[in-house]
């Protein structure tokens, strides 16, 4: 059983939450963007997390062969940044250069409150992962003191 596996898993969590934070910031910054990158208005992005095996396939193979039983430990990875496919919000604003024939503008479907709450959640998750990594490191340091 390795201390370093725990640290790898925690660092994958840190990276995932940081990426999520970037995506949420992009959403907030573009909450009013009527021109997105595919013609229409900006579409809300969201991250898709996935639990993936911790990479060292030989280790996992050994674990299973030794009758490790239980579930394999998995780390987290962002497999996709998903664009929201809902219909955009229509706002009546005839003076806007992007207004259509009826005077409606298509605005992104971004609720500022939702994004802020998600940012808080991402921050907390990031802190939790950082604490977990720190704790694993403390345990390893303590183990070095055995017999001193």
């Amino acid at each position, binding site marked *: 059983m390795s*201390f*370093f596996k725990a*640290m*790898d898993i*925690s*660092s994958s969590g*840190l*990276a995932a939450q*940081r990426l999520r934070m970037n995506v949420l910031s992009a959403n907030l910054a573009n909450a009013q963007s009527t021109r997105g990158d595919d013609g229409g208005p900006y579409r809300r992005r969201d991250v898709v997390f996935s639990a993936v095996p911790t990479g060292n396939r030989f280790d996992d193979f050994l674990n299973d062969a030794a009758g490790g039983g239980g579930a394999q430990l998995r780390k987290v990875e962002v497999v996709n940044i998903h664009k929201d496919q809902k219909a955009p919000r229509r706002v009546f604003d005839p003076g806007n250069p992007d207004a259509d024939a009826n005077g409606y503008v298509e605005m992104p479907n971004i609720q500022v409150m939702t994004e802020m709450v998600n940012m808080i959640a991402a921050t907390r998750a990031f802190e939790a992962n950082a604490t977990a*990594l720190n704790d694993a*490191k403390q345990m*390893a*340091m303590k183990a*070095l003191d055995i*017999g*001193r």
Partner: protein
Amino acid sequence: MNRLVGGIFNFADRLQMTTLDQRLKRSQVISANIANSETPGYRALGYDFEQQLASLAHLDQQVPIKVTNPEHFRNAFTTKDGNIEPDVYVRPTESVGQDGNTVDVDEEMAKMAKNQILYRSSVEMLNRKIGILKYAINGGR
């Protein structure tokens, strides 16, 4: 007198001494990566030495320790590299940032922590060995 004291360290001790040097170099590479985590076009570097040490120590095979030659690390006592030639290489990576930067700060921090723990463990093992030798020299009094 140094040769006398130098001769009582066996192969495993010299490996630990060599490891100390290598871990220091690795921590420098990781620091460079962290410092350049925002630099456009910077490719993350890696530093590997463990596989070479493992094969020198015959850890992959079932050969008992007394067969390995302490002379492989002839220079370990004078803190040179001995017979291994690790290299600094560009780490292959799948995720490239928009500005061509491939550094993942969190991964580098975790690597730094792991390196530090292993550095401390090598120091600790050498300390224990030196403690045993001191005890023997003092005759247990």
